């Protein structure tokens, strides 16, 4: 009685229930029986894509090679406030590193990380290569060799009976003629196979077939160009797509192009234009806030994050960023409220409990402090997170005037992450207070080494 159902219909049902693996297996069965079933073929393509799908808007990591061989840069030294590459050029109320820690790139640490938040450029190629490839600083060497390794993980795996689609034997021109197949195929090539060259070819053929009237293909072309680092070509495609059809995604992609060209002001303008078309659109508002934050203009960033919260009061990124801004402007009590809100929303991880612990301590809610940190330690997913929690516990120990405990905490931070520069620094300070010059030299020597490795990266 189960078998009565049409297998393709069942596969569709699995797809809609987001059981992509099952869906794909079922499609394979269908295809074994009738290899030319276009519906099953297309569905399988889509299922495989969905498994590895991540929002392309949210993904952006520059490889070192792109960074160093950047021929888009016009001026070596940008004017203050017009570039994201100059750390410390605060425009309007940015915090100083004496109050708020900064990333290795010299930007204020943010409340939220995305795959693209690791931006920031090393000063020289040499520095970039010296930078250790640990999990928290990993920057692939170039886009061609590894930038999208993370994205195309699915293509790294060899499946037992060969790939589902053998791209080299595919007649792309033929598929470009069939719009109902070509779009799914494109996404499969782009997201699953991570083969930008073939994806580009298909997109080019398809847009031609659509007589350059389909904005969707233009956006896809733009995405391909963007990934290949052909930013001006990408810009052209996105702009042309926007002329045909206003889409939020297109605005966001074009923004990414401007960010990569290090033209944050152009990006801001564009997003604000987007807001004219799509008033109060959350992703556009978030985009503006992110740029302001990266430009160290915390005041404006907070303004826009607040605007985001007016539209969507469960926006994790906005809550986290506003919370961290309050913490670093002497308002831990208010920061605490924001982080509590995240807890209510069901966020449950090491980072959140760590932040709750810090806020509680600095807001003088001592009863909650240690239990929060305990929870943070138990939820830590890796050694780096454990190290960060111990590092912050060291500050709590300093806050209660217990230097020995602080010493142990910072030591534990180092035990879990040997690269924890802040912990070395604070240990050196503690040693200096005890008057143990030799140890200070030891720790500051380490610190110097780490700083050399991390400089600007």
């Amino acid at each position, binding site marked *: 009685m189960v078998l009565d159902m049409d297998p393709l219909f069942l596969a569709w049902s699995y797809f809609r229930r987001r059981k992509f693996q099952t869906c794909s297996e079922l499609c394979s069965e269908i295809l074994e029986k009738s290899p030319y079933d276009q519906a099953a073929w297309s569905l399988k393509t889509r299922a495989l894509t969905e498994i590895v799908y*991540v929002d392309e808007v949210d993904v952006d990591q520059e490889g070192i090679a792109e960074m160093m061989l950047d021929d888009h840069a016009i001026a070596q030294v940008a004017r203050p406030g017009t570039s994201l590459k100059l750390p410390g050029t605060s425009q309007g109320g940015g915090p100083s590193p004496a109050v708020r820690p900064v990333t290795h790139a010299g930007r204020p640490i943010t409340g939220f*990380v995305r795959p693209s938040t690791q931006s920031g450029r090393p000063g020289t190629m040499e520095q970039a290569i010296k930078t250790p490839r640990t999990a928290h600083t990993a920057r692939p060497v170039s886009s061609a060799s590894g930038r999208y390794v993370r994205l195309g993980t699915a293509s790294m*795996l060899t499946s037992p009976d060969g790939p589902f689609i053998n791209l080299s034997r595919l007649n792309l021109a033929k598929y470009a003629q069939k719009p109902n197949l070509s779009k799914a195929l494109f996404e499969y090539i782009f997201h699953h196979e991570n083969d930008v060259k073939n994806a580009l070819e298909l997109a080019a053929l398809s847009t031609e077939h659509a007589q350059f009237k389909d904005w969707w293909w233009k956006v896809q072309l733009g995405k391909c160009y963007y990934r290949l680092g052909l930013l001006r070509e990408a810009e052209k495609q996105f702009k042309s797509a926007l002329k045909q059809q206003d889409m939020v995604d297109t605005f966001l992609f074009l923004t990414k192009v401007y960010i990569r060209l290090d033209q944050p002001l152009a990006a801001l303008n564009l997003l604000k234009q987007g807001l004219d078309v799509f008033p109060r659109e959350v992703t556009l508002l978030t985009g503006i806030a992110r740029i302001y934050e990266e430009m160290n203009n915390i005041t404006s960033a907070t303004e826009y994050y607040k605007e985001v919260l007016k539209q969507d009061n469960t926006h994790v990124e906005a809550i*986290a960023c506003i919370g961290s801004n309050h913490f670093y402007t002497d308002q831990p009590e208010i920061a605490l409220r924001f982080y509590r809100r995240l807890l209510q929303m069901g966020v449950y991880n090491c*980072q959140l409990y760590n932040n709750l612990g810090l806020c509680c301590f600095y807001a003088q809610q001592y009863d909650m402090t240690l239990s929060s940190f305990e929870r943070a330690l138990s939820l830590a997913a890796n050694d780096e997170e454990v190290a960060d929690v111990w590092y912050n516990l060291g500050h709590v120990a300093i806050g209660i005037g217990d230097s020995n405990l602080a010493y142990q905490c910072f030591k534990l931070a180092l035990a879990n992450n040997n690269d924890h520069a802040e912990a070395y620094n*604070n240990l050196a300070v503690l040693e200096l207070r005890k008057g143990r010059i030799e140890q200070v030299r030891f720790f500051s020597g380490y610190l110097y080494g780490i700083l050399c490795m991390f400089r600007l990266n």
Partner: protein
Amino acid sequence: MPEVKSMFREVLPKQGQLCMEDGSTMVLCKPKLLPLKSVTLEKLEKMQREAQEAVRQQEIALKEQRREPVEQ
């Protein structure tokens, strides 16, 4: 019979500790709020972990396949 009729309150100093001079000291790195991860980032990391695990499994399987003929 020590019967307390009235409770007295302590007198607090009216002036705290003022600083007249600023000596240079070593500065601590400040406490670090940890950034929360975006959904995309978490998915990426999960996919990467899974893929690495799968690659490892495949390699182990491959090795065992190679070894078997030798043993025979």
